[in-house]
């Protein structure tokens, strides 16, 4: 029965001293026929059993950065060689705790963003504002359905998931206090739990902003937005936004649109806010300056007339950097007030005057609507002052540049503090001797402009400016196109690709996401990604990886977004959007289990993750991860059964999940068809692994797409790519290819006979050459009805009996 009660006081006749409390009002009859699964709103231990299955196979690996702990007053404690500290914790467990804390920070960042977003949007649009992600998206919130067990229909419904997330985050953070967990595995389970929380809150944040701000709703063919330094019209006032929460900077677009003055300004941004600004209204009204590593490049270029910062990943010295260039800063997020005065109560004119005149270098203005008015007025005021004559060559004259270069004594202090150990000394020395800046210019392609080098330099050389100025023409003329973030994957797209992914005919889904701490020049990212697009994998991207790809052109002058379609399909590349849009990648994997395999989602996490691990050949890839959020995103994918490959800086997260192929007892499943517990090939054999080079990245990504449930044709296709890529980049067949062979039908057609000879002669397999069949050798035979699971309850559900021992 449906009924509606308005808020207010109620008088019930004849009753006195009676208190009536109304909890959640179900506004209409529940029409979701899917039965509730075993773990709706899972508490901190509800999925521990699943985690332990993963951790048994994928053993945590720790690479300490510090071997001491100083988190309490009993310390500091020497934990080296796995010693225990005063509290009793050993080094490995201390690292597991640290990783859990990092994942908590990541989840709290997305969670804080999500909470802020839904509170604000509910206030603005009302709690009944519908969640409508377009006609092609019926499974609106696959993660929330699977984890929380609800189908959110309105913005208000998202609060239920949010409240659960906040509670679980608190519980996990509690566990990291001194004197709690003793087992590193339990910390890892908690890291996975809070990282699953992270995926939930990312989904909340992105769904809320998509529906409320009319961002693209699962549209493959979104507009292309101008990307790079060279796209900025320097003859207009330039407003630069930086951060991750579009809530504060969207009103800038609204205000200018309302005033009919959008064309009079340049609005560009850095990092995820700029993705979301481009998504607002689905129009691509703002431009993308570049990734988060472009902050100092942009500020020191002198191009911005005003900076608007919000939260996450922004430089902690943003105000100082802006001040040095005379660029007014408007800080907006309560997460990053930057010591600035709160001017929320000031009239707009007073704020504008304070910033344009330079009386204040920056202000804290947590009122989005006011930011919308103030930022353009400040930009216009500053622009009028300089009249378009910006100091944007990093140095006033060439002489100034050479004076800086000539100060260098090659002491190498910069090299030994640079995250990449870039050979700045060699670039300087080469320039001093030859007047050739090319070696310094090359460094620009890899420098993340962290500025540590400048602090280390005893001669106070402006090293960042030298590097940027050395590559000035190339940097300043860099232009490209990024496809505006599309948000979710359509249910219809999943219907089309679900079967070929699970069967293996589409060899895999590669998700290139995350930050920019690349070990190599930016173009290496495109080389890696394009290898897979050309081989007709499904490639998705988001965040800084997406905007980097939007700046790298091929010889025909095209970025991958111009060259390939934006569908979630083989041979395409689709940009999901900002950090929080990563939730749609996990969502797509979940939807495959539901739409293609009819697995119920509702409160049914372990079954879905088990399905994904065994059947969905998706691999995450982060070439340059650095944030805590990236740690949480990756660990959340790991719990969902998706392996992640990271660049070499990723080892500084300290922990990986790496299986041991040579331990057959670790690699088993229950087969629901044969009612047996059986050994399988180690596929995938790691959940989180670092690579050193692009060559290694390409091979590992192909390798980790292999899944136990591949059909013969699917395995044949996956092995074809794996073997070809290994031969191309490693110069040989991979060492482990035979362990993935279940029958002769798995072998790549082009190499079949050659490979069968190798199996016979080098690995002792028995071959029937008359029938051209493998008789003996594989770990297991191929069975078309193979139905693997690691979860006892799932076995029992589908087999109708207890699993075999």
């Amino acid at each position, binding site marked *: 029965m449906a009924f509606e009660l308005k808020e207010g006081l109620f008088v019930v006749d004849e009753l006195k001293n009676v208190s009536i409390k109304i909890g959640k009002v179900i506004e209409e009859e529940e029409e979701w026929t899917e039965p509730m699964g075993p773990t709706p709103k899972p508490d901190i231990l509800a999925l521990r059993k699943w985690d332990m299955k993963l951790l048994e196979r994928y053993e945590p690996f720790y690479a300490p950065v510090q071997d001491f702990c100083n988190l309490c007053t009993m310390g500091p404690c020497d934990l080296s*060689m796995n010693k225990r500290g005063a509290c009793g914790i050993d*080094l490995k467990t201390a690292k597991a705790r640290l990783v859990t804390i990092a994942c908590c920070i990541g989840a709290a960042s997305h969670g804080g963003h999500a909470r802020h977003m839904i509170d604000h949007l509910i206030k603005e649009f009302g709690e009944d504002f519908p969640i409508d992600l377009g006609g092609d998206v019926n499974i609106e919130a696959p993660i929330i359905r699977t984890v929380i067990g609800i189908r959110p229909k309105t913005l208000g419904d998202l609060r239920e998931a949010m409240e659960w997330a906040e509670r679980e985050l608190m519980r996990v953070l509690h566990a990291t206090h001194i004197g709690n967990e003793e087992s590193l595995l339990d910390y890892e389970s908690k890291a996975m739990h809070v990282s699953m929380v992270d995926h939930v809150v990312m989904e909340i944040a992105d769904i809320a902003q998509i529906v409320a701000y009319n961002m693209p709703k699962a549209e493959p063919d979104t507009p292309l937005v101008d990307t790079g330094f060279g796209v900025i019209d320097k003859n207009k006032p330039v407003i630069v936004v930086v951060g991750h929460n579009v809530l504060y900077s969207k009103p800038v677009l609204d205000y200018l649109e309302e005033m009919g003055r959008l064309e009079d300004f340049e609005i560009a941004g850095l990092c995820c806010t700029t993705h979301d600004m481009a998504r607002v209204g689905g129009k691509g009204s703002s431009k993308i300056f570049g990734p988060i590593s472009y902050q100092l490049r942009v500020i020191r270029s002198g191009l911005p007339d005003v900076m608007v910062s919000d939260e996450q990943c922004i430089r902690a010295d943003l105000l100082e950097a802006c001040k040095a260039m005379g660029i007014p800063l408007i800080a907006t997020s309560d997460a990053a007030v930057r010591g600035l005065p709160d001017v929320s109560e000031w009239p707009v004119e007073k704020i504008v005057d304070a910033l344009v005149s330079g009386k204040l270098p920056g202000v804290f203005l947590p009122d989005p609507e006011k930011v919308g008015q103030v930022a353009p007025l400040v930009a216009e005021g500053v622009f009028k002052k300089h009249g378009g004559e910006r100091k944007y060559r990093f140095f006033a004259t060439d002489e100034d540049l050479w004076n800086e270069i000539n100060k260098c004594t090659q002491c190498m202090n910069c090299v030994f503090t640079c995250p990449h150990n870039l050979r700045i000394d060699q670039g300087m020395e080469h320039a001093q001797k030859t007047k050739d800046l090319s070696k310094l210019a090359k460094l620009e392609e890899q420098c993340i402009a962290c500025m540590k080098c400048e602090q280390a330099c005893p001669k106070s050389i402006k090293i960042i400016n030298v590097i940027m100025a050395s590559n000035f023409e190339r940097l300043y003329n860099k232009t490209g196109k990024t496809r505006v973030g599309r948000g979710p994957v359509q249910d219809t797209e999943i219907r089309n690709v679900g079967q070929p992914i699970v069967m293996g005919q589409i060899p895999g889904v590669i998700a290139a996401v995350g930050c920019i701490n690349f070990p190599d020049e930016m173009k290496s990212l495109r080389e890696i990604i394009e290898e897979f697009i050309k081989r007709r994998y499904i490639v998705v991207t988001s965040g800084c990886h997406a905007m980097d790809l939007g700046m790298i052109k091929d010889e025909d002058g095209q970025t991958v977004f111009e060259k390939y379609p934006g569908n979630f399909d083989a041979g395409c590349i689709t940009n999901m959007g900002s950090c929080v849009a990563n939730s749609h990648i996990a969502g797509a994997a979940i939807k495959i289990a539901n739409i293609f395999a009819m697995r119920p989602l509702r409160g049914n996490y372990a079954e879905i993750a088990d399905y994904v691990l065994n059947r969905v050949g998706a691999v995450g890839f982060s070439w340059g991860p650095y944030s805590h959020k990236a740690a949480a995103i990756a660990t959340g994918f790991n719990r969902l059964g998706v392996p992640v490959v990271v660049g070499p800086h990723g080892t500084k997260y300290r922990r990986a999940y790496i299986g041991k192929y040579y331990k057959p007892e670790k690699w088993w499943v229950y087969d629901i068809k044969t009612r047996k517990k059986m050994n399988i090939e180690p596929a995938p054999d790691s959940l989180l692994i670092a690579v050193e080079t692009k060559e290694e990245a390409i091979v590992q990504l192909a390798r980790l797409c292999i899944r136990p449930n591949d059909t013969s044709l699917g395995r044949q296709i996956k092995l074809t790519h794996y073997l070809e890529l290994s031969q191309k980049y490693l*110069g040989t067949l991979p060492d482990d290819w035979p362990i993935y062979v279940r029958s002769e039908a798995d072998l790549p057609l082009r190499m079949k006979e050659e490979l069968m000879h190798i199996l016979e002669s080098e690995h002792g397999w028995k071959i029937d050459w008359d029938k051209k069949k493998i008789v003996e050798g594989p770990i297991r035979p191929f069975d078309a009805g193979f139905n693997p699971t690691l979860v006892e309850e799932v076995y029992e559900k589908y087999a109708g009996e207890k699993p075999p021992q």
Partner: protein
Amino acid sequence: MAVSKEDKYPIARRYQIADIQVSREATAVKPNVVANLIKKAKRPVLVTGGKLLREEKLVEVAEKFYSKGIPIIATGGSSRVLIEKGIKPQSSVFTLHYVTQFMLDEDWKGFDGKGPYDVVIFLGFLPYYLSRMLSALKHFSKMTTISIDEFYQPHAKFSFTNLTANKELYYRMLDEVVNGI
């Protein structure tokens, strides 16, 4: 040409000023010490990294290791340039991250199945990446680790000193190692 007594070895300056731990730092060793450690080892192995794709000299050095009977585990794609020289690495596809995880396992018999390696020499890696792996091996294994890269690696048991300012000296030291084994 061997490194002469007159050569002055630079000080052992950590590849990264902030990569500090309270436990022991690597003993900075001269080439003859490295050669002796390898000669005395029962199961030595050379692990090569991605830098071999960009520095021909390192390939040449690895080739000489191999010719002296030291097996090679190739990572980072370095197998391609080694195979072109006729070398058969024990492994080509596993990353250094995998290899380190396997080495931490006392039950692991090595890629050739003949038993655990006792002395591991590292050549041609991104310094920050190698450092993390050396830290894992320092804290959680008894293995003897030797870095012969040009950056001094504090978490190895033994490391070349910092040779980043003198490539010629670095190459001569590499030659002396391979000539001494």
